[in-house]
């Protein structure tokens, strides 16, 4: 059992950057296609970090109301699966999933419009700042009520299976939300029908202040998969981008080709409090320091440089591009008008002529389990 206070976490010491890849280290081949993919992933991870950092700072400067849930430190668990997802793959995120939005391609300027609750965000400013949603990429707006997205992702996966569409539903929660009934009800059903679903438990060890060992009788939550008759995987270094990439490629391939769902538990760490108003005093002193040494982004950078996937010039160019993109986005958000209050009266009911995405697929092909 993992006991953090003795330092006995799954990852104890900083791993040598150039040895990323976990158990896939030896079989992972840097073909030209791979290199291109890694460059794309790098951009998404870097962008996620920089957006997050900027959003935190803007909140602290009092530039928007509400609160902010930073995911700095745990970028891999969201960016990697979202980066691998296809456009029509469903994403059911929770409250700390900025990387899903960035990875799936939600435009940066709309993310900032969202935190500023401006008229230019998808919901036109009626939602809470961090509840980014973007229908164009089949990513449902998160809901504050934990685990409610899990049955939704399950239903999306069910509809894919019924109609023989080769898409996958992705679902994300923290390790805390897995205690809710919706988690069990959904995974049980996914197991019965071998639905195309990839479930990620982002284990950052704390649900607000409650540590994993008093959240779950068995902190190896991936082992629950066995009870549902599905695949369960633990990534004990969820800050290892290459390891994550390989695990998700397998899970996605399994889901897309009728092999059923996968429950992935990836260990990671959030650097800051639950939200910006939480000083996180419940954590042991040196724990953060240990995990900061495992920061996923410099490790990935070191790997890319060491293996000559990218040069530092290329990286710097990307960073500069990202900074400019963020500046534009902040400006876009700040210059965007607020919606008039009456906007909150709209969209309570959908009109008769409304059409949901994917409605045109009308063939039901699944006949039996």
């Amino acid at each position, binding site marked *: 059992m993992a006991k953090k206070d003795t330092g006995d976490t799954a990852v104890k010491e900083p791993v040598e950057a150039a040895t990323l890849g976990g158990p896939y280290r030896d079989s992972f081949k840097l073909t030209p296609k791979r290199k291109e993919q890694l460059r794309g992933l790098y951009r998404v991870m870097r962008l996620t970090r920089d957006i997050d950092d900027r959003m935190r700072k803007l909140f602290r400067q009092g530039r928007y109301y509400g609160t902010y849930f930073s995911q700095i430190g745990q970028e891999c668990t969201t960016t990697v699966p979202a980066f691998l997802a296809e456009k029509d793959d469903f994403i059911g995120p929770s409250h700390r999933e900025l990387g899903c939005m960035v990875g799936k391609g939600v435009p940066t300027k709309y993310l900032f419009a969202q935190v500023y609750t401006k008229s230019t965000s998808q919901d036109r400013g009626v939602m809470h700042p961090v509840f980014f949603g973007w*229908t164009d990429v*089949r990513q449902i*707006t998160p809901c504050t009520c934990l685990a409610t997205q*899990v*049955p939704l992702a399950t239903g999306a996966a069910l509809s894919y299976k019924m109609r023989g569409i080769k898409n996958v539903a992705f679902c994300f929660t923290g390790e805390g939300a897995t205690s809710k009934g919706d988690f069990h009800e959904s995974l049980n*059903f996914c197991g019965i029908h071998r639905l195309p679903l990839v479930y990620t438990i982002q284990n950052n060890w704390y649900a607000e202040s409650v540590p994993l060992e008093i959240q779950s009788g068995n902190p190896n939550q991936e082992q629950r998969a066995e009870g549902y008759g599905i695949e369960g995987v633990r990534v004990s270094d969820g800050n290892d981008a290459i390891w994550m990439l390989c695990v998700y490629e397998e899970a996605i391939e399994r889901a897309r080709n009728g092999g059923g769902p996968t429950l992935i538990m990836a260990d990671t760490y959030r650097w800051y409090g639950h939200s910006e108003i939480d000083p996180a005093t419940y954590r042991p002193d040196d724990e953060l320091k240990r995990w900061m040494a495992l920061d996923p982004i410099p490790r990935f950078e070191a790997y890319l440089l060491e293996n000559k996937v990218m040069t530092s010039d290329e990286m710097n160019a990307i960073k500069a591009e990202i900074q400019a993109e963020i500046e534009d986005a902040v400006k876009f958000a700040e210059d965007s008008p607020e919606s008039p209050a009456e906007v909150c009266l709209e969209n309570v009911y*959908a009109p008769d002529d409304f059409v*949901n995405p994917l409605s045109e697929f009308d063939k039901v092909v699944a006949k039996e389990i």
Partner: protein
Amino acid sequence: MGHVATYIDAIVEAQREEMRRDERVFVMGEDVGIYGGVFKATKGLKDEFGFYRCLDTPISESLIVGAGIGAALMGMRPISEIQFADFIHGAHDQIVNQAAKIFYRTGGTWACPLVIRVPYGGDVGGGMYHSQSVEAWYVHVPGLKIVCPGTPRDAKGLLKAAVRDNNPVLYFEHKKLYRTIKEEIPDDDYVTPIGPAEVRREGRHVTMIAFGLMLQRVLKVAERLSGEGIEAEVIDLRTLLPMDKNTIIESAKKTGKVVVVHEAPKTGGVGGEIASIVAEQAFEYLDGPIVRVCGLDIPHPFHPKMEEFYLPSVERIYEETKKLVEY
């Protein structure tokens, strides 16, 4: 041309016709497939449409509704059956926080065309967990539509309308009505619009408002009152959300006296809402207090004598209405 159908026939017919019309329509719930539903409301659907379009689920109310929502987002038209209304609360979060709010929270870009079929209601000897009328919990939730058909014709028409609606619709079907009423319904495809109430009987002395099983009792009372020279106007609400305030207010203005009848407990029930609408909009026209004849403020009892005592009986509705007319 028409044919005679019971209330439950109407429900089966509506689903069958909608499933034939649109391949995206499917039913999911406990025992709906192999068994055809514990009330036989999905009888024959699995045989005609196959396993996945009439899908037996595990005992998982939150999943039945939540997966319905997810499928609806991805272009399907699910009908999620909750076996008994008493068990719907396991899905409360999904109904209230997901289904009802998806369109709103996605800025009007993602609709939730889901029907939740909910057998409900008493006078069936079911006791406190097989008899409840739970509609009031949901009438409080903007974004939902709620229908409570009181006749076979409406049972079919409203279910078809619900399937075609782009919003989540809670379809409350009354268990007692399943096989106790029948009427001639059209053979051809028809829908009953969600929203408008129906004036089942015109009158000028008193307005009686009901839905579901209580409509049948109110109609009996109106008949009896008519024999005594009192003409009651009977409004069948049919849709509880959005509520047809106009019909209620116009009738209240006309008769000046209003009785609301429902079988759920009085406190916090839909009757209170109707009374407020009348008080707000037709106060100067009233010639007496707004009367609510409801279930008692206790858990729904089992023993037939106690259940009879609990539910608004024809006798109780008659007495209370008579008192108001004479006020």
